[in-house]
């Protein structure tokens, strides 16, 4: 992994991490791809500026996702969360090929709080441990565990036939 800060070396890091980061942000923004991409761009820009601060204690991906999460929180503070109906429309017109179950999951996910969406996505889809998720989200371990468990219970109730 290159952390030399040169734009070419950093370009490699961007190419390596862009897909997961943008997908994570799309889930946080409940399917708003344009907003997610803006946040992803700001995240990489900030990461490049702060590259010297990355001490390699955790993985680069965790550090990057931490920046993305704080960018998302700043954006959320700036604007009130949009009404759920509009966002569900965005999710339902997502052009990605998707099975019905996946679409149902995305719809149900959109009804969770951002903290629950983030914790579930990090711990399940991205395979981070609860401890890593706690670091990324800058939350106590117990809080992350309860977001995961509460979010999962809500999803279960929403997806039950």
């Amino acid at each position: 992994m290159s952390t030399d800060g040169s734009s070419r070396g950093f370009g490699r890091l961007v190419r390596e991490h862009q897909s997961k980061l943008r997908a994570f942000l799309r889930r946080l923004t409940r399917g708003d791809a344009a907003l997610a991409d803006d946040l992803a761009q700001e995240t990489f820009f900030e990461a490049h500026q702060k590259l010297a601060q990355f001490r390699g204690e955790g993985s680069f991906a965790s550090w990057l996702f931490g920046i993305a999460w704080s960018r998302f929180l700043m954006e959320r503070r700036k604007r009130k969360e949009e009404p759920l109906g509009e966002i569900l429309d965005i999710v339902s017109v997502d052009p990605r090929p998707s099975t019905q179950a996946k679409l149902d999951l995305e719809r149900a996910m959109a009804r969770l709080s951002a903290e629950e969406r983030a914790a579930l996505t990090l711990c399940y889809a991205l395979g981070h441990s609860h401890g890593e998720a706690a670091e990324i989200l800058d939350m106590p371990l117990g809080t992350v565990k309860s977001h995961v468990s509460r979010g999962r219970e809500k999803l279960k109730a929403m997806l039950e036939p």
Partner: protein
Amino acid sequence: MSDDLDILLAEPLPEVADDGFSARVVSKIERAAWWRERVTLFAPVAAVAAVLPFLPGDELTQVALKLTPIFAESGAVALAAAALALTLTLERRLSEA
């Protein structure tokens, strides 16, 4: 349901095609670096230019007029100035390399 839900949740996030995203990020970073370099280079010049009108111009001119012939005639000062210029040029070349 729980098992199904866990399997569904554990599915990797969908691939997002790059479609020029990485190139846009790198280009933004390079643009910012270009501006930062210009600002670093010209900020001291701008600062001096901003302060210049408030300096006692006549007195400075008098001092400069007195010192110029002394510097011009002094071999030691000329050598020191040349050494300083060479050092600064070398340092700049090294930092660019």
